[in-house]
Structure formats: structure tokens, C-alpha cells
């Protein structure tokens, strides 16, 4: 792998050809869509999973069916040393991480006044601290090779006043702040950091949103439908590819025009 991230196969025009991509929370929903599109675009894909073994097996199969190498890693990213171990495992297998996608997140529909310290800490531990630790672990190698792409999966609740659990919205707002600041700090070393503010997508966190809220979203969405995991994968693939050379520190809304 060359330090500027050029392909190990220069004739391959695919977005992520030869890149080593690490996706957190890859066993279902958006994460599975990201892994699949990354593989289709030529990346070898490592991903973390926690409780969903069936989903993890399915993701692995999807990646391998696309002819790419796959490295599933079971990890609880709420544990402080998990991020370091995950990145080390990928570096040990493939030498480096070229693109990191912080997708693993948790949500629960609990109103503000019922959220206690434990609930808040629990969600922050994964959604914010987990992503922070993954960035810190992966950025070291990226700086070393003067190339890296980080894409943090945020939410439209992170920066807009819409119905959503307060602790979840806070974790995503913080993640966007982390994105902008980190982009400024590591950009000079060839590491570009961006975030995607996702609307409601099939699979994953959609199940935590009461049905009538989902309907309200659909009514507001210019495309009148939920996003598909692969559609998030397409955006991530571009942001995480070497073709992205100037988008940095940005939060891209991926919501079918709901908040446009």
C-alpha cells in the first residue's frame, strides 16, 4: 500500500479498489450495506460485531461473494481497550487501515425525564467514546502512511430539532463536533474526516422509532421512502475513497431531502 492511498491495481477503476476498510457494527442494517458496497468497490473489509452472529455470518458471506477478503471481529466497543485490539487485529492481518467507518451505535426510545446517568453513559460509551477510541487507534497508522479516511455515521437528530431520544441526539451531536475538529487536526497528515447524518434507513435503528414517527418522516421526505442500507454504503464508499480529496470536516445529510 502506498502512502498516498493509490491502488494496488491501477487498472481497477472501482472506488475503493485495494483499500483496507474497517467498519464498526457491520452485522446488520446500515453497517451491512456499507460493508457490501465497500467490497463491491474493491475493498477488503474488516468489521466488528457484538451480539448478532447470524448477521455477522451473512455480512462475511456477502463480502466474500464479491471476491474480497473479509475479517469479522467480535468486540464490545464499550470496553476501553476494545478499539485498540480491533485496529491491531486488522493491521496485523492486512498491514494498515485505510478507511475507518464508525457506524456502531445504539438507541432506545426513552423520554428525557426518564433518562438517568446510567442510560446516558451507556449510550455515550458506544456512540461517542467508542467512535473516539476507534479514531484514536486508527489515526496513528493513517498518519504514519499519510493517508486515511474516516467516516462517522451520525444522524439527522445530531444537529436538528426533531423527535429523537435526547441522549442519542447528544451522542450524535458530539460525534459531529468530533468530526469537524478532528478533520482540522489530522487533515494536514492526509487523513480526511467526515460524517453522514443519516435519516431513517431500513434495518438497524429504525426499529427504535415508533411507527407514527416513521410515518411523519415519510410524509416529510421528498422521496417518500426510507433509505436503503446500500444507499448509505454508496455515500460512505465515495467519502472513504481516494477520489475524495477535498471534502473534509463536513456533515453530509443523507435523508432523501427530508430536512432539505
Amino acid at each position, binding site marked *: 500500500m502506498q502512502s498516498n492511498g493509490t491502488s494496488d491495481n491501477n487498472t481497477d477503476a472501482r472506488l475503493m479498489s485495494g483499500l483496507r476498510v474497517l467498519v464498526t457494527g457491520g452485522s446488520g442494517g446500515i453497517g451491512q450495506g456499507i460493508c457490501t458496497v465497500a467490497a463491491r468497490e474493491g475493498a477488503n473489509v474488516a468489521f466488528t460485531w457484538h451480539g448478532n452472529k447470524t448477521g455477522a455470518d451473512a455480512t462475511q458471506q456477502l463480502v466474500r461473494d464479491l471476491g474480497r477478503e473479509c475479517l469479522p471481529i467480535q468486540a464490545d466497543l464499550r470496553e476501553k481497550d476494545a478499539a485498540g485490539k480491533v485496529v491491531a487485529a486488522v493491521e496485523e492481518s492486512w498491514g494498515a487501515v485505510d478507511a475507518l467507518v464508525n457506524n456502531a451505535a*445504539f438507541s432506545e426510545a426513552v423520554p428525557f*425525564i*426518564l433518562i438517568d446517568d446510567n442510560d446516558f453513559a451507556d449510550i455515550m460509551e458506544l456512540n461517542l467514546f467508542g467512535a473516539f477510541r476507534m479514531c484514536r487507534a486508527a489515526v496513528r497508522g493513517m498518519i504514519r502512511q499519510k493517508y486515511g479516511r474516516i467516516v462517522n455515521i451520525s444522524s439527522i437528530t445530531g444537529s436538528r430539532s426533531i423527535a429523537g431520544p435526547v441522549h442519542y441526539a447528544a451522542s450524535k451531536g458530539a460525534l459531529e463536533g468530533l468530526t469537524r475538529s478532528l478533520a482540522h487536526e489530522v487533515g494536514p497528515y492526509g487523513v480526511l474526516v467526515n460524517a453522514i447524518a443519516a435519516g431513517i434507513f431500513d434495518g438497524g*435503528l429504525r*426499529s*427504535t422509532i415508533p*411507527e*407514527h414517527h416513521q410515518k411523519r418522516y415519510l410524509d416529510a421526505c421528498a422521496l417518500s421512502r426510507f433509505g436503503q442500507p446500500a444507499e448509505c454504503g454508496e455515500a460512505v464508499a465515495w467519502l472513504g475513497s481516494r477520489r475524495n480529496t477535498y471534502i473534509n470536516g463536513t456533515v453530509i445529510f443523507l435523508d432523501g431531502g427530508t430536512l432539505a
Partner: protein
Amino acid sequence: MIQLEQLLAGPPPKRDRDAAFFSYTRSICPTCKKIIDAHIVLRDDKVWMQKKCPKHGFFEVEVSSDAEYYTRSLSYTKPGTMPYRFATKVEHGCPEDCGLCEDHLQHTCSPILEINDVCDLTCPVCIVRNQQRYSMSFDEFKSAVDLLVAAEGELPIMLLSGGEPTLHPQFFEFCDYVLRGPHEGKIKRLLISTHGRKIAQNRAFAEKFKAGGMYASLQFDTLRAGVYPKTRGVELIDMKMQCIDVIKELDIPTVIVPTVSKGDNSDELGALVEFGLELHQCSSIVIQPMAHTGDGGDGYHASPAGHRLTMPEVHQLIEEQTGWFKREYFHPVPCSHPSCYTATYLFRMDDGKYKPLPEFVNIRQYLDAMQNRAIIRSDNQLEKMILDSITNLWSATKVGEDSDLILASLKSFLKDTFNSRNPLSAADIERRTEARSKALFIHNFMDPWDLDVARLKKCCTHYVMPDGRLMPGCSYNNLYRHKDERFFPDAEPVSPAPVRIENGPSLVQITGRVSQ
């Protein structure tokens, strides 16, 4: 001399009527079924219907044991919902235009489709009159379901009845058509009105029933021996308890449906409510005060006097017999007429006990949230009601143990249900919500004694005819059933016949006798 005294005394004083007039309606003569005028009057803090048939004389029947409750219950009303289409014109006036005619004030919340009139019991309380000959064909069934879906779009529930529907040779095919056929997902729950014998005694049937995803709507009148011989003609207590054991073992979702007759099993109302609350598989309890129609009119009590249970009486008895379930918890279900349905929804606390929602939510919001529906569902109004109750409980200056328990219980429910670590499908969320809540309904059917056209007009419990008509339940039971040629082929036709709307639901000429 006497005449002189009378002249000196003047005319005798005018007498008042014995009751205060409250409203005018129409009803039928209990004897000849002719439609006649009726007055709703108030006397002795009770509500009565008075009516006079030119041929059979004066009739009076108690319609509510609590005049204050009755008048108050009428004050909460909301616009009904229109079906997508009506079947008959307004031609002769209610109740001779069924149905639904364009004047009917409510859509179908609870459709009932009778698929046979074959039964292996001859229950004295049965509101139909089984002739043991009719078995609906699959084509008729499809036609009925197709036209029902065309009229309503989506339905929260549908009830298959009879007869004993589980005795229909194509029972499971019918269920499959509703739940997995061309309208899959349109009818959310399929309930089977049953005595429970096949579930109790036929293991293969019970397992197939469970696998099919149907709900048992189980006739369940008592917890003690000696009552079923009166209500059902034969002792069934062992079979019923055997059925409950199978329901528990196979985890079959169930609605407990006691038919209650004053003096026979009305002393068990509290125990039946407690039984339903403790039965994990029971999603709701539907108490039906006995209506003296069909075999229940002719085969049980010669006169319903002394056996009638009015809505407030049921509330009162439940309060007296449970000691904790207050009558104030009951409110009319806004989709039907206030005298037809009352309900309470209960939520299971973390300690396993159920707490009625009216105890901790705003009543006005509660009534709005329950508007025009038979089943509790997640929507904006329900969410606002729950959020407001959480906020009010939490912000109250005095927070008692009860408030803490309610808040903790609501939180644990939300964390269990809307949690990305254990993502649930919409159907699973509905099931989890149902498992955490129960409903207690009182459904007061009318008979020829208390039939009130004002109640009929807002009926939302409708019999589904194979020709696409939807007949308000008590209208059909009292005025049309005995002339339905499916069951009584030799009966005189309905006269005057309801007039179909042109291009209305297409006809399968089964119940025919409808002029175009």
C-alpha cells in the same frame, strides 16, 4: 248530591307522568318486532325505555341503573369515521336500510363473519339460533372478505363466528385466506369465537391453531361448576379449564368472553376479571351482559325482567367484587354508542400487577386516544398521552411509591420495546405492547326489549354478509337474522327490502332479497 259535591270540589288534579322524558327514539315490539316509537325516560335515578305496540301493548325496560352515568356518558362524542363505501340507500329509515346505509354514523371496527350455523352445543344464552345446516362455501367466504376489505381498507380485528366455526371443514383454509391470502396484513388480528372444545381435546387442531396465528375468543362464563348447565345447557367446567391449560401450554393468544346473566353468574364478575388479568395469554376480557335474543330470548328466561344487567351495574359489580377496580375506570369506547361499549385499558407494572390507565393518564386525552378504535395502538395521541402522564407524574411535587413504580414500569417497557440492541419488527412491537397491556371491555348487545335505533346508528360491530353488506350487530340479530335465507330458507323475505346503491358491492346472491 254527589254531583253537587263534585261540582263544588272542581275538576280532579292533573297527574304527572311517572317518569321524566329524556329523549325520543325508535325500537321494536318484543312480540311482533314491528318498529314502534320509544321514549327514554328517567325515574328513580334509573333510565328506562317505554314503548307501546298498537297490538301488544305497553313495554318498559330498564336500560341503565344509573341515570347520572347514562346522561354523562352521552356528552362525549366525536365524529364517526366513514367506510370507503356504503351498500344501501337511505330509503325506509333506520333500521330498515341495513347496511351499511349512507346514514350510518360509524365504520366497521369489529366485523363478525359467521361461517356456519353448525354447533355441537345448544346454549340457552346463544344469541343466534343454529339450524345445523349452513356451511359457508369458500367462494362466499372470499367474497365476504374481499368486499369487507374494499369497504374498510385495513381492519384491526375480524371475528369468525358461527355456529361453532372450528367445526367448519375448511376452517383453516378460511383463516389462511384472511391472514396470508391476497389481503395479507390488512386484517391485523383474526379472532375465532369458540367454545374451546377442539382446542381442549384435539392436540393436532390446537397446534395448528397456534401455528396459524389466530386468537381464541373463548366463551368462558364461570370458574365454578354448576353455571354452565344453566348458560350452556351442559356442564363444561372441566373442558374449559382443560382448554385454558392448552392455551397456556401452547401460548395461544386469547380473549376471555364471559356471557353474564344476573343471578346466574353475575357474582363472578370480579373473579373472571382477575382470572383474565392473571392469564398471561389473555389480551383482553370482553364481558357480555346477556341479550335476550335468538335462543337467549326464547330458550332461557321467559321474560328478561330481573336478569338484565345494565352497563353501570356491571361496573358496580366489578368494583364491589374486586375491591380495587373502580367503576370510574370505565369509559365509553368513543367509536360506538356510549351504551354499547365501555372499556378500560390496563398496563402491567414491573411488580406484575396491572394498573388501569385512567389512574395515571389524563382522561380527556385517554378518550381521544381511544377514539374510533377497538385496540390500543401506538400513535401520536397515545404517545402524547403517555408522555404527558410521565411528565406530570415526574414533575409532581409529591412523588409517591406509586408514581415511582409507574415511571419505572413505563421506562422498562420503552427500553425493552424500542431498543436497537434487540430490534423488533412492527408486528413484534405490537405483540410486546399487547403483552404488557390488557383491555377490559363491556359489550352490551341489545335485544327486542331494549333495542334503540339511536344506538344502532353508531354501531361499529357489524356482521359481514357474503353479498358485501355490513349489518350492525343488533339490527341483524333482532330484525334480519330470522329472515336470512342462509339459515332460514323458508322464511318470509325482509319487507321492505333495503335498496342497494348502484355500483355498490357486487352481489353473491346468497342473502339476496335486496331490491336494486
